[in-house]
Structure formats: structure tokens, C-alpha cells
């Protein structure tokens, strides 16, 4: 069933950005905390060495590996956040759907992990370019994820699938059956209402699992 768009709210957009940055900042803080502690351990080790204790090269190696691992993790997190932040550089842009969804998933994966819900993504077999707002698409997908996470039990799965179907690019989000009222579907349609961009279609199919589809005209 499709609905006419009714306008996306600024507050929803701000809450979306807040949720993403809260999750990311939590992860970054974990990275910093670990590097801080390894730095402290190194300091302890050096103090011991100055007092005459032999240096254990194996332990030093382990410390170096922890720092390297967390630094790589931190770099990845910042890169993903930066990519997300630039999603609003232009109100309307041509962008690649697989990359936009991958970016969002990288930023919110931890929210699903905290609930012990598996988040799986099947990407389209080829690149899918659309003209719209990458930020709005990410926001719409996020709202779907958020809704599923509210009721998905631990051990369940939320699946994202990106496909090129004829002249459309489609992002489908499916998860445990949920009841979505008209207000929620209108809200989602409103998020995808982007001025000067071809209109997107939102459809919802129920059953044992609920599937929400966001279809946008593709550009090849």
C-alpha cells in the first residue's frame, strides 16, 4: 500500500542525527579509553624497566597490536561519520544507494548489537545511482531499523536488501512482524519527500515478517 507524502519533520531529522552521533561518540570513547589504558600500561612497564625489571617483548608487542587495532577502528569510525556528515552538502544529489546504505549500517550496527539483533545487508549486484537526498534515504532506513529494533527479540534478524528493479532502485527493510499505523507510514513517506527530486514510493507488506520498501527512480 502506498501513501501520499505528507512532509518530513525537522525534529525527526535532528533526532536521527542525534541517535547516530550518540552511538558513534560512544564507540569512539571506547576506542579512546582503550588507547588511554594501553598508554597507561606502557607507562607502568617503562617505570618497571627503569626500576630494573626486564622488558617483556611479547607484552610490548601485544600493547602495540592493541593500539594499532583500536587506531584502525577509530579511523574507520571517523571516516564513516565524515561520509555521513557530508550527506547534507547538497539538498539533492546523485548518489550510489549501496554506498549510502553501507554507510548508515556502519554507524548504527552497534545499536542492533546491543539488542543482540542481527543486521544483515544484501547489496545490489551492480551500482545503483539515484537523484535524491542521501541523508533522507539514510534517515528513512534508520526509522525502519529503529521501529524493528523496538520489538525485535534477541537473536532475531533485520534484513536490508538493495536491488535494481527495472528503472527503480529499491531498499527493502524486513524484520519481525510489526504493526505500522498510517501516521508512521506517512512520516516515512514525508522523510523521502525531497524537493526537486523524483518522488520515492514507500510500500509496506505484512505477514510473518514485515517488509518496508523504499523505491526511487534509478539513473544508469
Amino acid at each position: 500500500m502506498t501513501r501520499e507524502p505528507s512532509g518530513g519533520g525537522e525534529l525527526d531529522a535532528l533526532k536521527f542525527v542525534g541517535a547516530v552521533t550518540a552511538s558513534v561518540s560512544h564507540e569512539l570513547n571506547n576506542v579512546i579509553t582503550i588507547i588511554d589504558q594501553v598508554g597507561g600500561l606502557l607507562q607502568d612497564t617503562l617505570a618497571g624497566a627503569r626500576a630494573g625489571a626486564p622488558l617483556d617483548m611479547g607484552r610490548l608487542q601485544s600493547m602495540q597490536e592493541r593500539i594499532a587495532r583500536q587506531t584502525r577502528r577509530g579511523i574507520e569510525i571517523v571516516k564513516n561519520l565524515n561520509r555521513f556528515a557530508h550527506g547534507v552538502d547538497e539538498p539533492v544529489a546523485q548518489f550510489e544507494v549501496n554506498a549510502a546504505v553501507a554507510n548508515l549500517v556502519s554507524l548504527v550496527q552497534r545499536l542492533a548489537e546491543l539488542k543482540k539483533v542481527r543486521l544483515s545487508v544484501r547489496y545490489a549486484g551492480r551500482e545503483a545511482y539515484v537523484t535524491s537526498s542521501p541523508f533522507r534515504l539514510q534517515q528513512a532506513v534508520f526509522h525502519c531499523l529503529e521501529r524493528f529494533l523496538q520489538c525485535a527479540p534477541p537473536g532475531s534478524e533485520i534484513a536490508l536488501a538493495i536491488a535494481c528493479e527495472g528503472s527503480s532502485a529499491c531498499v527493502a527493510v524486513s524484520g519481525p512482524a510489526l504493526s505500522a499505523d498510517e501516521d508512521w507510514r506517512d512520516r516515512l513517506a514525508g522523510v523521502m519527500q525531497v524537493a526537486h527530486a523524483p518522488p520515492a514510493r514507500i510500500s509496506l507488506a505484512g505477514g510473518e515478517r514485515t517488509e518496508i520498501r523504499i523505491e526511487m527512480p534509478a539513473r544508469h
Partner: protein
Amino acid sequence: MTALRVLLVDDEKDFTDTLAERMAARGLQADVCADGAEALELARSKTYDAVVLDLAMPGMDGIATLKGLLANNPDLQVILLTGRATLQQGLEAIKSGAMEFLTKPPDIDRLIEKISEARTKRERLTEQRIEKTLSEILRTKGW
């Protein structure tokens, strides 16, 4: 005095491993685990002066783990660690029975100070419990 015994609970393995090493260098005995369920099992089988517990963990979060730990052992002292330092969270943690609420990254010396306080507090609570039990026994016997 025996070494302070602590259980570190956090899903970030690099964090718990590093913290455990730093504590060992300072004479503490630290066990580590990655989730609430494992923490409950370990706390049932071993005696700890304190549990240092991350608030945000997959599955059973810090508050749920805290409640489970205290249900099994009301005298156990739990120090919650979090990246977020909101007053509301701090109050909820204390209301749920946590001894202390610290932010990440923790200062190791302050953390060890709190673990030492935890031992004193736990021993005092255990003594009070024993005294109360003894008094009740004596009272029932009419002494």
C-alpha cells in the same frame, strides 16, 4: 592482607585485558569477562571485593547485570563504568544498588581506591549480617 580481588565486565576485550594487566602490576587479582551472563556465573562461584561493570553491553546491560549480581549477593560492591556521564544515569545506577558510578576512561588509581573502599564496605556489611544472625539466634534461645 590478601590481594584485592576484582571482576572486570566489559564487551571490549582490549579494555578488560589491559585494565587487568595494570591491576595485576599493582598487586590486584583481576578476572575478566565479556557479558552479564558470564559475570553472574563467575560471581556465584568466586568471592570478589568489587565488580567493575560496563553500563552498555550487548544483551544483558549493566543495570540488569547489576540487579542480577546483587540478587545473588546483596553485599557485593559494584562499580559502574560508562561513557555517558548524565546525572540521571548516575542516580539510576545508585538507586539500583551500585556503589559508585565512574566515567570512561577511568583513572586507574581512583578506580583502585574505590575497589579498596569496596572491600571495606563489603566486610562491614558481612560483619553486620553475621552479628544480626547471631543476635536472632540468641534471642530465639532466650539468652
